[in-house]
């Protein structure tokens, strides 16, 4: 197995955890949350400041501890959940639809500006680096075998998260979240506490984002605002949409298609006849072409197959005794 494939698959597994977390918020709870990448970033940044040791001038950042990686991951996840709790408790109380999306867009922008401009926090635009092969020295791996170890670790963690989500998907909690997505009034009429349920789902999603971010920090061994680019964010949302919102198998398929296949195949665009000269014009062309493709896929899927390739299976009442007209708001 080539080193390239190992790297792609590790990234894909981490990406899968990110997508499963987004699926809790967007897929099940039904809220289009634009702040989600912020929780990934919080997870990544926190993992780094807890493991890479004190800042050496001219760098500035908070904490600067040298905790063992697994403990740092736990703290990072808790921090991401705490930030999610703050944003969620503001945004979910009264707001739905585009108003929710706009407030979460604002929240992520504030996080982005703080991380990128407020230097004492995470060293501003330079970002953090220096987390090399966490846990590698526990087992005495060399560079190459560590790559295989990290791939195995990411895949196992992805499988565990997937199993966890599979359990939640069929649980009372998972069902209740979907009820809120379909009809909040009906859920409220059956005694559901809408706000608490939504907030629980939101914090769970944020925690998964933070967890994926902590792994992402180990994969990249660094994190800075440019790892937070719009293209990464849009790929994540398109993966969940293309696969099938609400269906974890669909989300996994979407990650495979958008996160791995499209992301990696666009690397080979310049080798196509005629397109090769284009990329000699300036270096951003390739990234921009990838962006155009992913944006178009997002719009076309929304229009022609909004349920995704593997739609969520819906419960159908075998004996509908009373027809209730759907609410149109």
């Amino acid at each position, binding site marked *: 197995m080539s080193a390239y494939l190992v790297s792609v698959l590790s990234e894909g597994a981490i990406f899968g955890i990110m997508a499963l977390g987004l699926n809790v918020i967007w897929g099940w709870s039904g809220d289009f949350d634009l702040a989600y990448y912020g929780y990934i970033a919080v997870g990544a940044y926190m993992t780094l400041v807890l493991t890479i040791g004190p800042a050496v001038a001219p760098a500035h950042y908070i904490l600067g501890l040298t905790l063992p990686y697994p403990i740092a991951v736990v703290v990072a996840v808790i921090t991401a959940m705490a930030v999610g709790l703050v944003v969620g408790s503001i945004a979910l109380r009264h707001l739905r639809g585009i108003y929710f999306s706009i*407030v979460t867009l604002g929240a992520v922008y504030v996080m982005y500006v703080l991380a990128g401009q407020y230097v004492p926090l995470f060293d501003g635009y330079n970002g953090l680096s220096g987390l090399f092969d966490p846990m590698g020295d526990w087992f005495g791996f060399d560079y190459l075998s560590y790559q295989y170890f990290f791939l195995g670790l990411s895949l196992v963690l992805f499988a565990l998260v997937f199993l966890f989500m599979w359990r939640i998907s069929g649980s009372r909690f998972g069902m209740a979240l979907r009820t809120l997505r379909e009809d909040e009034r009906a859920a409220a009429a059956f005694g559901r506490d809408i706000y608490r349920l939504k907030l629980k789902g939101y914090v769970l999603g944020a925690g998964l984002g933070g967890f994926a971010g902590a792994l992402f920090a180990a994969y990249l061994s660094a994190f800075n605002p440019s790892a937070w680019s719009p293209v990464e964010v849009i790929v994540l949302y398109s993966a969940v949409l293309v696969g099938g919102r609400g269906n974890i198998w669909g989300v996994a398929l979407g990650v495979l298609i958008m996160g791995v296949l499209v992301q990696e195949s666009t690397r080979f665009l310049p080798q196509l006849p005629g397109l090769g000269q284009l990329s000699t014009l300036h270096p951003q062309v390739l990234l921009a072409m990838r962006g155009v493709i992913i944006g178009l896929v997002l719009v076309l899927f929304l229009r022609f197959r909004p349920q995704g390739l593997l739609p969520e299976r819906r419960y159908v009442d075998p004996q509908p005794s009373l027809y209730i007209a759907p609410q149109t708001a």
Partner: protein
Amino acid sequence: VHEVLVTLGFALVTASILALSAVAFTLEYAVTNVANVSHGEILTAGAYAAYLVHQRTGSAVAAAIAAALAGGLVALAMHSAVIGPFIRFGASPTVVFIATLGMSFVIQNVLVIFFGAANVAYTLDPGAPQQIGPFLLTPLDVEIIASAIGITLALFLIISRTKFGKALRAVSQNRELARVTGINATRVAAATFFLAGLVAGYAGFVLAESVGSFNPYFGFGFFLITLTAAVAGGLGRAFGTLVGAVMVGLILEFAQTVRLPGGGYVSASYNLAFAFAILAIVILIRPRGLFTNARRTVFE
């Protein structure tokens, strides 16, 4: 006192540009009930068109006309290619919101492919600052403020006095009812997008002038401020939006003059974050805008 007046002058310029952009955005919202996230790209298109025409002809007037036309055509294309079909298909406002987000991303990247991601420097000679009333303004500032007032007046007359304006208001209040009375809602919405695009394209031109440079992401950043002004004034309410724009313009400029406890000033790079803080507060307290009596509901 003098410093306050200087800041007030800057704020008037910012507010004028913001008012143009926000009124255009709110008109787009009024006829579709959809927040067009790709609104900022209309401004970006206007800026590029103005730059290219200015280079060829050397005339600022030609550049302004080109910016408006480019904006109008881009907005019309947005409506006919994406927003209109989604609405006819019966997509929910949130779905169209996401689709316009995708469209904005596509347009930004297309611009990067053709023009590169680097900043393009673009300045007109602003002329020497002059004392006008209590303010110190350059002739360029005066032109920006005057044109914003003129365009807003023209929009007011179109919306309140013409048959098209009547149709626009009808579609905005109740699309289905408007259609029953024989108004072609799709055509009215398309025409409104063209009109809003003309205004937004021109706003892109004056924004590029006043900032001095632009790049493919320039409109998106300004869109975020536009959104604040439009929501503060009440989405879809053209004249509430004007007040919202002036208010947000004032707050943003004055925020930069506040001296921090440790010395120094609030950096302009926090501007957008600051705008969003205002936005979040407005949405939470009065989601339908500051100037309306409508009660908020949980089920927005």
